[in-house]
């Protein structure tokens, strides 16, 4: 186990791959695709473990390893995410960390790029800045309930179907694949997931109108594109957030505007 580079237990099954990876030192310089070869890659490795192998080799050669974001490596933190052969998170509907090399075969050429959207500027190589998502949440993606002010939990029953649907929307991990997959670089699925989650619950009603107009205004300010209902977002979403959330957002937005809600400037 000690100081091993590459995979030693896969034996004959190991794959040899050519990687073309976006290298960009920092936001101020232009990036370019650079080719690397990795050998003896086990099909049981995760995609990020394959990149670990590459990086260990690069460090040993004295080269700069490839920067990429990742943390939990179990598909829930939303920190990882790269374009793999032009698809957000690659060929499976999952996070990059949960993509395994059994999805590839010996001799494959794999293009690896960062999310491409101007509201997500590149920090270095494959790592991008997704703080725009946090600012959309700051605009209204919450229920205002200061600590200690809550009523007894059973005071308000919530119909199971509403609660389950709210949960489904709430599983969004904020990875940004929806934006990366969208030809318009729209953040609509991300925003709609939160609007749906909170809007389906009785606790979310008092701020429902303000929430939707402010979150939508913020995503526009961030420079995300408009939604034209293409559906690439939902297709790329590792949590399978449904396009229905976008319908719900539009419904809520229209209702809120009719009722006179206007975004805070």
């Amino acid at each position: 186990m000690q100081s091993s580079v590459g995979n030693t237990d896969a034996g004959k099954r190991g794959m040899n791959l050519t990687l073309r990876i976006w290298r960009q030192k920092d936001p101020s310089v232009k990036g370019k695709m650079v080719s690397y070869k990795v050998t003896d890659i086990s099909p049981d490795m995760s995609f990020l473990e394959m990149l670990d192998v590459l990086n260990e080799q690069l460090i040993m050669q004295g080269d700069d390893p490839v920067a990429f974001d990742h943390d939990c490596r179990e598909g829930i933190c939303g920190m990882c995410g790269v374009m793999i052969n032009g698809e957000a998170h690659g060929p499976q509907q999952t996070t990059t960390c949960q993509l395994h090399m059994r999805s590839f075969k010996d001799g494959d050429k794999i293009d690896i790029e960062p999310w491409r959207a101007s509201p997500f500027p590149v920090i270095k190589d494959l790592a991008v800045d997704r703080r725009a998502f946090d600012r959309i949440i700051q605009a209204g993606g919450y229920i205002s309930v200061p600590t200690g002010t809550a009523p007894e939990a059973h005071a308000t029953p919530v119909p199971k179907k509403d609660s389950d649907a709210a949960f489904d929307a709430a599983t969004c991990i904020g990875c940004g694949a929806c934006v990366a997959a969208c030809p318009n670089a729209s953040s609509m699925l991300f925003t709609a997931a939160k609007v749906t989650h909170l809007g389906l619950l009785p606790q979310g009603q008092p701020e429902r109108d303000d929430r939707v107009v402010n979150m939508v205004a913020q995503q526009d300010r961030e420079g995300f594109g408009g939604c034209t209902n293409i559906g690439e977002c939902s297709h790329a979403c590792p949590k399978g957030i449904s396009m229905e959330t976008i319908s719900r957002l539009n419904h809520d937005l229209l209702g809120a505007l009719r009722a006179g809600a206007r975004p805070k400037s």
Partner: protein
Amino acid sequence: MPLELFTTGEPIADTKAPTDVPIGERWSERRFRGRLVNPANRRKMTIIVVGTGLAGGSAAATLGEAGYKVKSFWYQDSPRRAHSVAAQGGINAAKNYRNDGDSVHRLFYDTVKGGDFRSRENNVHRLAEVSVSIIDQCVAQGVPFAREYGGLLDNRSFGGTQVSRTFYARGQTGQQLLYGAYQALERQIAAGSVEQHARTEMLDLIIVDGRARGIVARDLVSGEISTHFADAVVLATGGYGNVFYLSTNAKGSNATAIWRAHKKGAYFANPCYTQIHPTCIPVKGDYQSKLTLMSESLRNDGRVWVPKERGDDRDPREIPEGDRDYYLERLYPAFGNLVPRDIASRQAKNVCDEGRGVGPGGLGVYLDFAEAIERLGRPAVEAKYGNLFDMYAQITGEDPYQVPMRIYPAVHYTMGGLWVDYDLQSTIPGMFVIGEANFSDHGANRLGASALMQGLADGYFVLPATMTEYLADGPFEKVDDSHPAAVEALRGVQEQTQKLLNINGTRTPASFHRELGQLMWDLCGMERTDEGLRKAIDRIREIRQEFWSNLKVTGDWHSFNQTLEHAGRVADFIELGELMCIDALHRRESCGGHFRAESQTPEGEALRDDENFAYVAAWEWRPEGEPPVLHKENLEYEYVHLAQRSYK
């Protein structure tokens, strides 16, 4: 014990819990006796909170709501990434919604017993009291807990208890609770009460006139190392399971903040208490970068077994009932598959040591849902555990609806952490420690669904109430960059950072980390011995020496450099690993997750030695070359009768 490994100092004690009133009144009494800070004065005070998991996120939001100026730090891009997000199973609360005999006292009792009588009664009782408010708070925030058809909250049972008190959101409870705290935090950021420092890592603590007054932190994007000041500092930086390299922690989870605070004077309590979780996906290859947990909730319906005969390599579906050993049901008929984690892990190790393990290398046991699928139907099993089954299939390439899962224990949680008193204040005045980063509530073993409870209890309810006693003496004299303590701390961090880059040896940080992790797993993991621990200490010292003479880190520190980040964390893990082994060596009893082979009952269960070890071991760092000093906090049990734990 040879003198050179440690020395013994003065005992230490908590002086904050009002023990002159009965235990059920202590928390309200403490809040009454503690001084308050009026709203106008809160605006004059700054509090640094490091970490944005359940503890740090909820604390920063709540302190911001209260009117303090909060500075929040985290190393990921967004506070929503903190590893609390990955907690699956649930959160305990003594609501007694099932009318099954639960109460605050029973949750208190179960937690003290589950911790194998090595936790502090006062803290645990408070945790049980506060648990009910957490559920109310989270529901009000819109956390979509599982509900029944009547619209009321559902519960399930978890290891080490006989009631159903666990609230859950499918297999993603931590995610949903974290988003509640995260949204509350973002609301405060928008309101201007919380200042955000994303992708910023704490690298040292600044102490002025004996008080924690700030931190040195590195902006991980620009590389800039700078100082930040406050009237108090809160560490909510999680546990140190990544000492073992392979664990269920996130890759970035690290001990650097607590370790560097320890080196500045904060005592480190019970470092050897680590939780090895019984239900994780087994290791596959030497490239493996982390281990993935399968929620303990699976043990509600899944049955754990191995073949009766060693070397039985038949397809598990073809092994008839009579040739299977459902060893947990056999050994612990009362709790069956729901025994506490430490016991389930150790028994998995035992059957594998007997040669009855399954899968590659014989390091695995089956977790079988065939019976549950037959009893409940596949849709019901999918509804309860669907996301976990999908995750298993994704990682292993096997379909757990068809073939039993294979599981094996993995490092999951650390009960040890920085020592705190009842107010959650460390031995450094003005530095508070909350969540997994402190040691306070779980003794030698944490029960399932109690980590989320503790993180949110500390952050939402306990810390904001206890901190006021300290802050009532503030605001403290203004400190800035020019203060000698700040200059010195900043220079120390810059020098160490440069030193890591200057070595230019031949081994990567990851290679040292893997070597340390394997050593810790082998010799300070599920079973520990005098001989093994001594060997580990010697070897860790060699690894440390080699690290500082043969490390290779590329690039510089004035830019985004993930290899450098990792190197700094590994340097701290190596030192912490040594202290963990010293602690494990000195504690010659078994308790909870700490199993010393020399101390077991005839049935092979952990055998405590209450006469000699009913204490918290709080370690003081000494300057380079001197052994650490042990300070003992005596544990007294007024309300829970000390007994040999039994789940039979």
